[in-house]
């Protein structure tokens, strides 16, 4: 549906996009993920024909956005980072205006406006002036605008920024519905945001595509072994000897005692082997109460940080890890 080939964008000396290529299949829900200034908005602005690329091509449904802009743009609904709203229009007026510039036939206009209003739940706001709407509602009017004309592709740049948690969850529902009918591209700098709704996540940083895969596989591919953090009530030596009987647990590190009479351990097994059951049966066989068990595998958030290489965040983490290694002298294999 969308083909992006060797896209490069320079702003003067600054290289915003460096030769990126990707394709989006029909009906796919793709998430652009990246820190601020990574090139997400630039990519979207080029794909929608708002700005031109320095080099490279964009094809929407086989139509070159530069050669036949009107035809290509007719297939796209776009919600930019700032919703493009006219404050002195009422919601209905605005949506009718957008429908007319998107060349929706006047006979279908009324029905289509009603449909998009229902989809993002702004029916009650129809007669309100846009400048008096709250941030969340403005964002929704922006989304409604992108859906007008029933475009094959809908592109939304950070659609959930500034919404409250309840609205974010509502919006996810809207995205899921949209994803069933349209090819949908979303961008965000929040991992859960995209992993919750997208079939595929593309991590962009400094104008490069760093990774592109399903959220699950991104997580699996980058998980380092299978590590659990457990808190057990009991005597340290007894626990260590009990754990020694289970060969599936390869490594045991005593970390610290954070609660009276308990000890925290970091347990790891071989990669891709689930050690949770072993931990449970070990503790229950020795009647040592297991008070907490938590995965230490990388969360998507951490993967994101790792890939985009934000050292200032990553460094203290590794230091902490080294610190626990030096204090955990009692290593049992």
């Amino acid at each position: 549906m969308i083909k992006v080939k060797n896209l490069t964008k320079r702003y003067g000396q600054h290289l915003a996009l460096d030769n990126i290529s990707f394709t989006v299949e029909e009906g796919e829900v793709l998430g652009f993920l990246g820190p601020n200034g990574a090139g997400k908005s630039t990519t979207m602005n080029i794909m929608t024909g708002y700005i031109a690329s320095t080099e490279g091509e964009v094809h929407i449904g086989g139509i070159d956005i530069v050669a036949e802009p009107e035809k290509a743009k007719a297939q796209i609904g776009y919600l930019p980072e700032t919703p493009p709203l006219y404050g002195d229009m009422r919601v209905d007026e605005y949506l009718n205006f957008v429908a007319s510039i998107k060349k929706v036939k006047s006979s279908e206009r009324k029905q289509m406006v009603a449909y998009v209003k229902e989809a993002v739940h702004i029916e009650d706001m129809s007669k309100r002036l846009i400048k008096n709407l709250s941030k969340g509602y403005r964002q929704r009017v922006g989304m409604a605008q992108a859906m007008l004309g029933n475009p094959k592709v809908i592109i939304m740049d950070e659609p959930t920024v500034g919404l409250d948690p309840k609205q974010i969850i509502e919006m996810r529902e809207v995205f899921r519905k949209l994803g069933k009918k349209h090819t949908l591209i979303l961008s965000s700098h929040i991992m859960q945001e995209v992993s919750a709704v997208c079939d595929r996540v593309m991590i962009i940083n400094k104008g490069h595509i760093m990774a592109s895969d399903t959220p699950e596989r991104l997580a699996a591919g980058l998980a380092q072994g299978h590590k659990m953090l457990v808190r057990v009530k009991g005597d340290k030596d007894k626990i260590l000897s009990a754990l020694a009987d289970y060969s599936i647990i390869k490594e045991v590190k005593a970390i610290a005692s954070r609660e009276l009479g308990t000890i925290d351990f970091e347990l790891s097994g071989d990669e891709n082997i689930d050690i949770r059951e072993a931990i449970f049966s070990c503790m229950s066989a020795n009647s040592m109460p297991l008070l907490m068990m938590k995965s230490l595998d990388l969360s998507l958030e951490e993967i994101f940080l790792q890939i985009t290489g934000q050292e200032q965040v990553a460094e203290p983490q590794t230091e902490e890890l080294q610190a626990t290694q030096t204090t955990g002298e009692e290593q049992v294999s």
Partner: protein
Amino acid sequence: MTAIIMKELRTYFTQMTGYIFLALTVLLTGIFFVAMNVIFRSPHFHQVLNSTTILFFVMVPALTMRLFADEVKNKTDQLLYTSPLAVWQIVLGKYLAAGLLFLMAMVVTMIFPLIISNFGELPVSQIVGAYVGYILIGLMLIAIGVFISVMTENQIIAAVSTFGIIFVMFILDALAGGMPADATSSLIFIGILILIVAGIFYHSTKNIFAAGIFAIVSAGIAIALFFANNLMFDGIIGRSFRWLSIFSRFDTLTMGILNLADIVFYISFALVFIYLTVNVIEKRRWR
């Protein structure tokens, strides 16, 4: 395009600009009407139109300053430029909206000659000529204003620059008399013109070779002509200023003479500026 026209007209009348524009045009024309026609019992309404050309200084910037500056400020330009509308449709839509509002004001001022016709005989041909000229000048200046509006994101800068350019056009005729008429200054003047055109050429095509070749070739022709036929260069500055002066052409029209050359001049001037506006937007997005 109709959608853009309707939207712009709506905005004029929700932001009060439209009402203020109509009211002020009618009020000021009315004052001149009283001062020149009623008091002196003169049917020569075309003289009123001739005097009220000073209204353009304020009216044109008021009409055009927000057309593009506002869109950029509100980021709504992203909506327009990513919609299936071509850039020329957007520009023409905005231009026609401003033009229509101006025409509305013109229609209202036609009350005054109607009043005169009730009490005496109207010099019809002169008044028709004056109206044609007035409307053409207005439409041309609006095109210039639209062009300036697209050059800046700031409404105030747009308004002041539009005012400045209209002012220069207004005094062009007076300036023409004071310009040096000898051949050498004419040659220098042509040299500057060539540089400006080459600069615009380079700015819009980004092709330094083509612009350079254009500058060298036309400078060569100018110098060759200068040595071949020196007389031709006499008073070129004054002549070109007079040619450019939109208001001296207006005087001919108020005499009731509909000169095709003048009408073509105004219309083509407006078209050039609309074309330039489209071009600037396209080029900016290619950068």
